[in-house]
């Protein structure tokens, strides 16, 4: 079943002081199936972040539509969009986006508190997640007291705790050392194997090689896509590298 469907997405920025408009997304279409683990790759300035912001309903496209489980994001009223985002989407960011005014546990609880869940239910939901992510003993600490890897695992916990339809990850390994990055990618794979749909934006070949499918974006369009389909991580890594080289040297569109 298709969870996410993106049709002919276009985004043009006009700058504040009336400079020439910048086209971030030209024409993007793709879809993500339930239980899939997809990665979007592209160089800086290729429109990755714009795409993610639109998927996250933080930004609105100039034209085109985004359907989450068949429901158009643009049809949701402004008032409901936050609740919708909270209940259906989970986020993992490069810079963690943990609030330093809250302990890690309270950071993880934040979306649930906003939905008005009771403390008992929140603790019940947190318990298995904390065990799986190995963060049980640092929950009382504050973001500035723990390492980057631990912060990112808490951010994952925050994304998981709402049992979202789709987790969006924006450069999740970007601020992590190689060991912590490796751990996080393994974690994503596990989560995915338990049935969680994941969409990750990255320009790390290593990170992308863990995904089942990789979409390449160039100049605001989907340039190419690769399916892993039983390939090993290493083989996938090689294939992604090749594609990137081709893209960088200005090769034509692959089929």
């Amino acid at each position: 079943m298709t969870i996410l469907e993106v049709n002919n997405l276009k985004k043009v920025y006009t700058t504040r002081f009336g400079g020439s408009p910048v086209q971030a997304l030209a024409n993007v279409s793709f879809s993500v199936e339930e239980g899939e683990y997809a990665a979007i790759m592209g160089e800086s300035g290729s429109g990755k972040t714009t795409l993610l912001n639109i998927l996250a309903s933080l930004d609105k496209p100039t034209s085109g539509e985004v359907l989450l489980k068949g429901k158009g994001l643009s049809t949701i009223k402004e008032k409901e969009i936050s609740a919708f985002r909270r209940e259906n989407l989970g986020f993992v960011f490069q810079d963690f986006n943990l609030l330093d005014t809250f302990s890690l546990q309270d950071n993880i609880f934040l979306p649930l508190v906003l939905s008005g869940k009771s403390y008992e239910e929140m603790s019940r939901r947190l318990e298995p997640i904390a065990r799986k992510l190995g963060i049980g003993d640092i929950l009382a600490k504050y973001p500035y007291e723990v390492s980057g890897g631990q912060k990112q695992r808490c951010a994952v916990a925050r994304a998981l705790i709402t049992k979202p339809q789709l987790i969006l990850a924006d450069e999740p390994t970007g601020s992590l050392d190689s060991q912590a990055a490796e751990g996080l990618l393994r974690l994503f794979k596990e989560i995915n194997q338990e049935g969680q749909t994941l969409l990750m934006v990255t320009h790390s070949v290593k990170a992308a090689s863990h995904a089942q499918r990789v979409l390449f974006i160039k100049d605001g369009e989907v340039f190419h896509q690769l399916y892993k389909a039983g390939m090993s991580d290493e083989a996938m890594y090689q294939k992604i590298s090749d594609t990137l080289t081709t893209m960088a040297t200005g090769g034509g569109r692959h089929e």
Partner: protein
Amino acid sequence: MSRFFYPKLAATNLKKNAQTYLPYILTCIGTVMMYYIMVFLSENEGLGKMAGGSQVQMILNLGCYVIAIFSAIFLFYTHSFLIKRRKKEFGLFNILGMEKKHIARVLAFETLYVAGISLGVGLLGGILLSKLIFMVLLKILNFEVPLGFDVSGPALAAVLFLFAGIFLLTLLNTLRQIHLAKPVELLMGGQTGEKEPKTKWPLVVIGTLSLGGGYYISLTTQSPLDALTQFFFAVLLVMVGTYCLFTAGSIAVLKLLRRNKGYYYQTRHFTTVAGMMYRMKQNAVGLANICIMATAVLVMVSTTVSLYIGLEDVLRTRYPQNIMISTPMPAQQSVEGLQTSVKEVLAKHRLEEKDRLDYRYAALVGNQEGDTVITDMSNISNASSSVREFYLIPLEDYNRLAKRTASLGDDEILIYSSGSKYEEDTLTVLNRTFTVKERLDSFFENSPNRVSISGSYYVVVKDMDVVKAMEEARAKENRDDPSGYRYYLGFDLEADEADISAVYQDIRTALRSDYPSSWIESPVEAKESFFAIYGGLFFLGIFLGALFIMATVLIIYYKQVSEGYDDKARFEIMQKVGMSREEVRGSIRSQVLTVFFLPLVTAGIHIAFAFPIITKLLAVLNLTNVGLFAWCTAGTILVFALFYAVVYGLTAKVYYRIVSWGTSG
């Protein structure tokens, strides 16, 4: 490198940081202006020559010191805030290859510009405004307004000296900070990880105790004399309490709230409690400052305004009658002789006395301990709250004035208390014990000393023999000469001030030879000096009030700016995690509102608790019209609150502009 590089860079820096520097420069200009005007007035020769002018200048002189000290502390404080925000910039310069001495040079130029603009504009404004303020002051003081316009050299010198010093100090302090810091530290600037604040229970306890102590003193102090000595102690306690409770108390309360899971994990409370904790840690001291300054403004303005408005009341309280004569009665003179002299003067002016009040009396001062009064002067401490004045009056005079036919035995008395109540059944004074036959609940409306800072009693005794015997006993105990008895004569006149003044002068002359120790008082004579003192205080109150308000505005503004930058990141994260813009906005708005109105509300509470003790203090200054003071206080609070709200509203705009910059795209 071009010779103009540093001056140019300094100018660019100031322009780039206009958002924070402009208010700072405006404040500098404001303080320069105020200080110049204050020094100008206190040095002004014309003012000094006017009647009562020297008293006014004494008050204004005090104002000069207050403004000088305040400006120094305040400008220093705000400047360090500015620099804190700019550390990143300095770090960048450093990394781009500027040495610290180059940065120092840029900073020196910046300071030079700021000082130049502040002093130039400030002095110009001060000189222009000084004439206007001078006229306002004279109007307040009821003085004639002379023509002419002058610039005061000493005032100019004082301003230049003071502010050059302040600017130099701020520059040196900044250089010290830059010199000590490493480039990386500078780059990291204001964003070192914020630790969660610890609950400091000792501070909470100290704060609660001292605040409670201050309030307790205000509520329980009965005698105006005590009020005088206790007031500053109470103020100190409340200040300590305010600082402790704002810093530690707020955190403790928020932590308790957080511990209550049912309360904390609710949508409405969750972000607020955590956000407030962070905010209070950052802002507690600044908010306590605002609170104390607001309280100071409110107290100063409300008291000086009510004293000034109530001046007629004050005069009436201090001088119940138009002409008041009190004299020791030498043995060779008689009451009738004095009365005749006064009558002759009145006849000359074709005036009749009205509401005449006259009686013979002897005065005693002593420490009251239960039903015993210790009159031995060597044992009396003047500052003690148990000091009482006793006026012994013969029954004959009392009966005549009160139109009664009361009778008394040798050791019986009638007593009337003014100030503190006399609760005992007997009164022992100078080894003689009297029985209280009757407690009078009213006495002669216009008797002098009705309001006195210590309590006073009017004691009616059997006859003049008792009065004289008591006076002799007092003289013997204190080893001085008995002065016999005294005589008081007071009356009103239906005449204008000039006539009353003439009568006053004539009576004074008439009595000089026969009654050399007599004193004569009239509100007409005192009016000028009362206007000078209370008008001077009023002026100073308003002037300093304006200065404090300016400071409050600046602190609020800077708080809003720094809050804005801090909240920007949080605002974005919360949206990403699933709060709508409106929810975030609402949550942040309620927090910011709480943070900014907390000092105002606290100041209001302080004022409410200070009210009793301030009314006592005003009684010392002869203002007994509590209603007037209540109205003035309420009015001042209202005006201040309105002003505060407007300032808040204006600065909140800056805040929202910072917070929503970039998220609107």
